[in-house]
């Protein structure tokens, strides 16, 4: 996975704690048109995934021996595949797997990474050492290799793929949050919390965790993109969710074997993966710009 999560600058807490930029949707759209367009594309994809059974003109699994490898037409807008299945209906249903896996993977990554990062940054000492070395070990596995191995061990179900991708992404969250907690924990409000007798657990849960949230949201948006790519890669390699469940990666795998006979088959699933990944990246960039004024001044200064 590419390192686009790494250019998340630490959220500048000190300046914006009191005057966090209030950003209404219309204002956000005017200032960040790309991010707004990206957000609308994401909404469309989510709707497509949610209502796939209603929207799909055909059953995604229904084969049609007569109409095999049809080029796009009025009755099959994206054409039909080797078994005569409607590519548009399959692409709609493919959105379900993609988004489901990605959302769950991000939640798993956050659920593991954020608490570990807070604990590691706040407590320091041997806890920090152990957490950091374990993240070193996990990060040393190339993410696709780790996902392939874990899916092989656990079996190719949606839940296992999401676990595999989530575990792979968790260390980045832990490190990101840890870095942030390191700078937060010496701030006056934490000292004040200590002075009034707040327990460590309370400080971490009530005072540290909410302030790491902006960074985590940006990271989550960027990880959504990488998780969708990773899921598609697994399916493309034939290690993802098993057919006949339609997945974009699986559809591309079939399309690849037909690249001479029916090149149009690869266009739509590929474009879908590309568009949704692009949108999550642009949205993440937009949110970061809103939340991190420092970065904006660098860009336009």
């Amino acid at each position, binding site marked *: 996975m590419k390192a686009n999560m790494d250019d998340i600058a630490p959220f500048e807490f000190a300046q914006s704690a009191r005057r966090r930029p209030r950003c209404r949707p219309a204002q956000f759209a005017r200032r960040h048109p790309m991010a707004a367009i990206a957000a609308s594309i994401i909404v469309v994809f989510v709707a497509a995934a949610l209502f796939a059974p209603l929207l799909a003109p055909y059953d995604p699994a229904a084969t049609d021996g007569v109409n095999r490898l049809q080029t796009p037409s009025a009755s099959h807008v994206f054409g039909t595949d080797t078994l005569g299945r409607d590519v548009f209906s399959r692409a709609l249903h493919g959105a379900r797997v993609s988004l489901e896996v990605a959302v769950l993977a991000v939640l798993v990554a956050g659920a593991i990474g954020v608490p570990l990062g807070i604990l590691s940054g706040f407590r320091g000492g041997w806890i920090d050492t152990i957490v950091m070395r374990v993240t070193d070990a996990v990060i040393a596995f190339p993410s696709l290799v780790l996902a392939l191995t874990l899916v092989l061990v656990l079996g190719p179900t949606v839940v296992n793929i999401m676990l595999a991708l989530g575990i792979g992404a968790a260390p980045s969250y832990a490190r990101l949050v840890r870095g942030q907690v390191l700078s937060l924990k010496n701030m006056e409000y934490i000292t004040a919390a200590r002075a009034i007798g707040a327990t460590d657990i309370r400080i971490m849960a009530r005072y540290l965790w909410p302030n790491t949230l902006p960074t985590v949201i940006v990271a989550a948006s960027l990880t959504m993109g990488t998780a969708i790519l990773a899921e598609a890669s697994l399916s493309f390699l034939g290690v993802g969710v098993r057919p006949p469940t339609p997945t974009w990666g699986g559809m591309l795998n079939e399309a690849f074997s037909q690249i001479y006979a029916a090149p149009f088959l690869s266009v739509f699933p590929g474009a879908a993966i590309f568009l949704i990944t692009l949108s999550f990246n642009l949205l993440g*960039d937009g949110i970061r710009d809103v939340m991190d004024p420092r970065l904006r001044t660098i860009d336009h200064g």
Partner: protein
Amino acid sequence: MSPRHGKPNVAAGNRAGPGTPFVIAYVMRRCLQIPFVVLLVTLALFFIMHLLPGDPIYAAIGESEASLDEVAIHQMREDLGLNDPLPVQYGNWLADLARGDLGRSFKDRVSVGDNIKGRIPITAQLGLMALLVAVCVGVPAGTIAAVKRNSILDYCVTIIAIFGIAVPSFWFAMLLIWLFVVTLGWLPASGFVGIWEDPWPAIEHMVLPVAALGLTLSGSIMRYTRSSVLDVLNQDYVRTARAKGLNERTVIIRHALRNSLLPVVTVVGLQLGYLLGGSIIIENMFAIPGLGRLALDAINGRDYPTLQGVVLLFTFLVLVVNLLTDMSYAVLDPRIRYS
């Protein structure tokens, strides 16, 4: 400019004073950490492999011989050490590893180590060429975008960079194959020729896989270069250079670029994981008999010793390269202190 995980802490006001002892101490500490992390990796890998469903004995002897009688199977388990307690098995495996013995493939009983060794040059050729393409495209494009920021050129580069990050390498490869192989017929669809054996066919075969891997990678390098150069262009010494009348070219090439490429170097190093993962996909699409292909064949054939070997090699490479990039950072930038 915020380099990645393992990000160095730039302490405030530490520009003065000698940096070297800190660097040496840091490098030594990092080197000492490596065995610990490697041990963790092997431990994780060992237990992952033992969580695998199915009795490894059947994988080892092959399905056809699965009808062997109980006694013979028990004997084989004994011979293969599968009856020992797990910690003992782990210890034995580790001892073998330390001797450089990665075991034998379940599939064809070939030594995993030899098999991997034979494939390293192939994947190295693909990976290094892709990296070269990514840097040669990404660094100049990112620099131009930063220098001409907020121009049409900048927006174009930024958009192309985001496209590079979002496009799945395998889809990009399919589009390239469709254009250059299916439609134009200019390049071979698949296969591999070593660059030292026959340079021209080798390049012909490498163009598409290298483009698919390198161009998608160049996106993140473009973005890093852009933000890094922007960072440096805003610094006082660049203004000083301009103020003393140097022309813009000299300011950028002699002053700005030198310092801004530092984080880019580390980012390039950290993309190794992407390259190795990408090689699995690309080698399979283009029938390149490298490590990525070996890994996927091992996964599909449930050939655990081979998979273990490849994964170990990949993780070890990533660890070493991460260490080297961190060290280069420490050596090249005296402002950075590692705590």
